[in-house]
């Protein structure tokens, strides 16, 4: 996403600029500019439907979507489904992150472990994860177990690959500085390796979380009585497209919020980064 935004920036980038010094105006005008196309499309559709020039039944106009959204929120349904979905993602994200971090760190650190485990993991990664669903249902039941397992698998691979790559690419020269100062193995991890891998780790967590949201949809589409994915299926079966779009909007919003949380939580630790777009961490 940041890549896309980066490519549409038209003003020259001040590389040395410090975070936070960015004048607010540039960012706001860019945001407004980006909203032009969706707002025009939405308003246009609304007008067409209102004028009776288009039938809004299959593609509901914004006002209907908003009303559905508000109704779901007022009845507390929306919050309940969001809570269920978010808990599933949180559980799967936690499991996938912990296992991915541990295995990735070990494989990055030790060539022997990497040669032992990495081929197997890469082969497993080649399997489209949805293909596991029947097996997971047999193993873990049709309720939470199989869903959380599927989400964990989705989160695991980007985290594992990101951590392994980050550990492997730690600058040998900085490790040598640690050796010259006689750091113990624990101090070496704490004072050199961890800070060195942190930027790549944050990116790995963000892509892991993105896949977590993708997989929760898959898991809930395949059978659930609660959750935003259930709202999708329910909307399809009962012919309520506005409910489907409302659920999609909810997914977009909480997905973006959870990504922001990672970015904001780690931003203070990454202020040192000498990045091309260091002033735009929270975009």
């Amino acid at each position, binding site marked *: 996403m940041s890549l896309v935004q980066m490519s549409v920036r038209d003003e020259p980038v001040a590389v*040395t600029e410090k975070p936070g010094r960015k004048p607010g105006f540039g960012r706001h005008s860019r945001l407004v500019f980006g909203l032009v196309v969706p707002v025009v499309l939405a308003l246009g559709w609304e007008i067409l439907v209102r004028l009776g020039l288009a039938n809004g039944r299959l593609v509901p106009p914004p006002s209907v979507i908003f009303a559905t959204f508000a109704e779901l929120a007022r009845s507390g349904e929306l919050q309940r489904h969001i809570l269920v979905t978010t808990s599933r993602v949180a559980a799967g994200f936690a499991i996938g992150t912990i296992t991915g971090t541990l295995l990735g760190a070990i494989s990055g650190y030790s060539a022997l472990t990497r040669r032992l485990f990495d081929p197997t993991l890469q082969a497993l990664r080649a399997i489209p994860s949805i293909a596991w669903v029947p097996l997971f249902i047999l193993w873990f039941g049709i309720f939470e177990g199989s869903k959380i397992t599927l989400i964990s698998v989705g989160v695991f691979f980007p985290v594992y690959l990101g951590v392994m790559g980050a550990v492997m690419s730690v600058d040998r*020269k*900085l490790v*040598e*500085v640690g*050796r*010259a*100062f*006689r750091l113990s193995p624990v*101090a070496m991890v704490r*004072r*050199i390796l961890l*800070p*060195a891998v*942190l930027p790549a780790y944050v990116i790995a967590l963000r892509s892991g979380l993105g896949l977590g949201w993708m997989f929760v949809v898959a898991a809930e589409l395949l059978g659930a009585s609660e959750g935003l994915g259930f709202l999708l299926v329910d909307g399809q079966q009962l012919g309520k497209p506005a409910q489907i779009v409302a659920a999609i909007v909810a997914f977009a919003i909480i997905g973006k919020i959870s990504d922001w949380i990672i970015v904001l939580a780690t931003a203070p630790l990454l*202020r*040192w*980064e*000498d990045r091309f777009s260091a002033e735009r961490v929270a975009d």
Partner: protein
Amino acid sequence: MLTLENVSKTYPNGVHALEKISLEVKPGEVIVIVGGSGCGKSTLLRAISGLDTPSRGRVVLDGVEIKLPQEQIGIIFQEPRLLPWLSVADNVGFGLDNRPRAERRERVAEALARVGLSDKADVWPRELSGGQAQRVAIARALVPRPQVLLLDEPFSALDAFTRTDLQDHLLYLWADTRPTLILVTHDVEEAIVLADRIFVMRPRPGQIFEEIPADLPRPRDRQSAAFDFVKRRVLAALDRSLARDARIDDRKTDAETGAAMWW
């Protein structure tokens, strides 16, 4: 007293980098090592620092054999190698982690003042120029007050002006506690500005080819006849160190070729 006893190094891939290097360095002496690229200068410094171990022979500091990095031995690399996630002050204090916070803060502030970077204490390393970053690296190595300071081509990535500036600066810092300095360079003038003794190395396998005393009065005048005399001696020794090698290789042996290609 730092002593090297028949230090030899053969890398696991079979490269014979050092052959029986023996040296005695008195405390506070400034030794400069010059020699063609690949003649084992870095290998030698790494063996002295304990970052690497000799295949044969020993490095002994005050009667204790060095096998691992020691607190009494500091090293400065060609690149500053500052940790980008630490402020300049925290980089300088990196080797003082086990000291009380107040002492650490005081010694860091003192070291930064001595390298003239007090105003940069709280900035990130990325905000420093190359010369400033290398000064921070020098401060970081000096703050634990090592007896021996090793420098591997520390100024070679800098422009000529900054380089002379840092040479003077290094001597100023050295004059304070007078650690033993062992510095590798391929800049002959730099060698003569700094050294008490200059060792010219020759390659394949790395050996000491010639020792040249440079006991000129300090501060040294680059324009003086004595400076020029030592300079010509070093250049001639470098020529010969390569010429012999070239003859083995059956190449041209005239001094011109040597002078042009010794680095």
